[in-house]
């Protein structure tokens, strides 16, 4: 049996603003139906990576190298009119801020229908019926009445549901969700993530979840890729990763998050000292200035991703030391 090709493959992808490279060559594979989390702190380039896949980068930002392979095409160089056939149809996008990502002056039904009418030969009436089905599917009550309502008539969680309905309207093979729950109430976050997970399995969609919430990663995804200062430092399946991450940065992330989703904890959380900017001008591993295990060799050349277990890659020269009993916990 020939293995199915991955839905999306990023090869040595580089993205940046003029004179300021942000994403410095990342490789990432997303298999059919797989839910992958891209985790990292603000400014590490995870959102830029997400936007570069559909070439929806902010002005001035450019893909400066590498490939984005989807369905046999390199989206990084595909002509604009062909890329438009993939946007919304093959790959859909959900943005972080449901308050601003819907057009305030158009009825939500029309905004969802736009996607369908763009990609499918459907009459307006049939498209409207599809939209009502979709709104119902994402859990919006009274979809027929809501069809003509405007975004300001909806709460944040409901707007994000509209965004999800819009994204899944054409049964995309891949859904990119850029921090889809960050702007929502904690109580709503789980509902929205449950909905996304449910839809992924129903429609056999793959998902790339951009987040900084390790709790969401553990609960709702299959595989995690940890990003630091424009590079992927560790990628692993969820279960072994949460049993014992190998990169010192992943370990730091884990130590600085709460267990079991409890937001009231009796013990102080451990922080990672320093900040991302300390890596500016660093020739070697970008995490070296903050790493408790950094050795002189770490500051020469950036470490490559190496196989560290089944489907598990880590970019660290000090992996062996990092795996020794609780090095980070012992350092404070």
């Amino acid at each position, binding site marked *: 049996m020939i293995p199915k090709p991955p839905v999306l493959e990023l090869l040595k992808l580089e993205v940046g603003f003029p004179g300021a490279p942000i994403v410095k060559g990342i490789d990432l594979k997303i298999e059919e139906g797989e839910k992958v989390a891209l985790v990292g702190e603000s400014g590490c380039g995870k959102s830029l990576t997400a936007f570069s896949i559909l070439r929806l980068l902010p002005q001035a930002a450019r893909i400066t190298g590498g490939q984005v392979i989807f369905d046999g095409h390199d989206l990084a160089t595909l002509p604009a009119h062909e890329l*438009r*056939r993939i946007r919304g149809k093959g790959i859909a996008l959900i*943005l972080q801020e449901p308050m601003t990502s819907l057009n305030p002056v158009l009825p939500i039904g029309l905004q969802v229908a736009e996607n369908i009418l763009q990609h499918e030969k459907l009459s307006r009436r049939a498209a409207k019926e599809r939209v009502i089905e979709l709104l119902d599917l994402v859990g919006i009550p009274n979809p027929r009445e809501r069809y003509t309502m*405007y975004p*300001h008539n909806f709460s944040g969680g409901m707007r994000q549901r509209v*965004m999800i309905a819009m994204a899944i309207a054409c049964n995309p093979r891949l859904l990119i969700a850029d921090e889809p729950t960050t702007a929502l109430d904690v109580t709503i976050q789980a509902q929205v993530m449950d909905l996304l997970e449910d839809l992924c399995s129903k429609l056999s969609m793959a998902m790339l979840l951009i987040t900084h919430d390790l709790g969401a990663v553990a609960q709702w995804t299959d595989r995690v890729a940890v990003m630091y200062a424009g590079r992927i430092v560790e990628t692993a399946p969820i279960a072994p990763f949460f049993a014992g991450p190998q990169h010192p940065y992943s370990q730091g992330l884990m130590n600085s998050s709460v267990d079991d989703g409890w937001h009231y904890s009796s013990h102080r959380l451990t922080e990672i000292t320093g900040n991302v900017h300390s890596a500016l001008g660093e020739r070697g591993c970008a995490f070296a200035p903050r790493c408790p295990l950094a050795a002189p060799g770490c500051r020469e050349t950036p470490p490559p991703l190496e196989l560290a277990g089944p489907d598990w890659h880590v970019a660290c020269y000090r992996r062996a030391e990092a795996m020794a009993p609780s090095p980070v916990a012992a350092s404070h």
Partner: protein
Amino acid sequence: MGLLRTIRRTALQALPTMFGIVLIAFILLHLMPGDAVDAISGMSGSSSQETMEEMRAAYGLNDSLPVQFIRYVAGVFTLNFGMSINYSAPVLDVIMERLPATLTLMFTAFVLALSSGIVIGWAMAVFAGRWVDRLLTAGSLLLYSAPNFWVGLMIIVYFSAKLQLFPAGGAETIGADLQGWAWFTDRLHHLVLPSCALAAFFVAIYARLTRAAMLEVLRQDYIRTAHSKGLHPMLIQFRHGLRNALIPVTTVAGLHLGNMLGGAVVVETVFNWPGLGRLTMNALAARDTQVLLGILLLSSIAVIVTNVLIDWLVSWLDPRIRS
């Protein structure tokens, strides 16, 4: 029902405003040296002191200012706006005779300015930073800073005197007695130059406004959402971009309608247009206080009514205001 309530509320709000306008205008007009009788006597060349006093008494100009003011306001409540001394006719008739010409000119200029301003501003935003944008920005700065009487004169010099494309003044061919279609095209032909001269300044304003609003809108998240659906860029520009950018443009355009009336006074004078603008100039020269008060009252009503219309238009464009 909603509209009726809006009208009633606006009328109640407008009443004190209009009273204030009439009061201030009344005081300012009487601060001017000389009155209508002086103007008439000056025109006729010789008048004895006695006839002038008789005329003043006949027109009630000897009464104290408060008495004159109360008489005027009381008249307004019965829709009697007084008599024009200069034209020896009721003010209302004098104004109504000129009103259509001015409304035609202003309406044409407004539509022209708004439509071309939006198109130009949109082009500037789409090509922001490139040569198209720079050229149009420079052009709009020129229109913005040129006084409209000068623009009017230059247009006359070039398009009328030199190219002989359009008539230099007036609203119709005098004595031609045209009917139907010919009458309409003749009017239109006369309308082109003055409405362009009046529109020039506002084209620049609306273009720069549209440019700024459009650039702001194109940065919004929902534009990225629209792109993520694979929509054609032109569709996004219009349905998602311009639709949102028009909200601030419409609001400001409405506020500028009052300014346009001021511009019309000058342009009508330059183009010999038989409208309120020229009536104002003549009334000012003749110290025809009643006519001036009537025009001021009318234009303040016009501004208030326009603002109601603009509010209604904006709420139609922006569903957030509707609810």
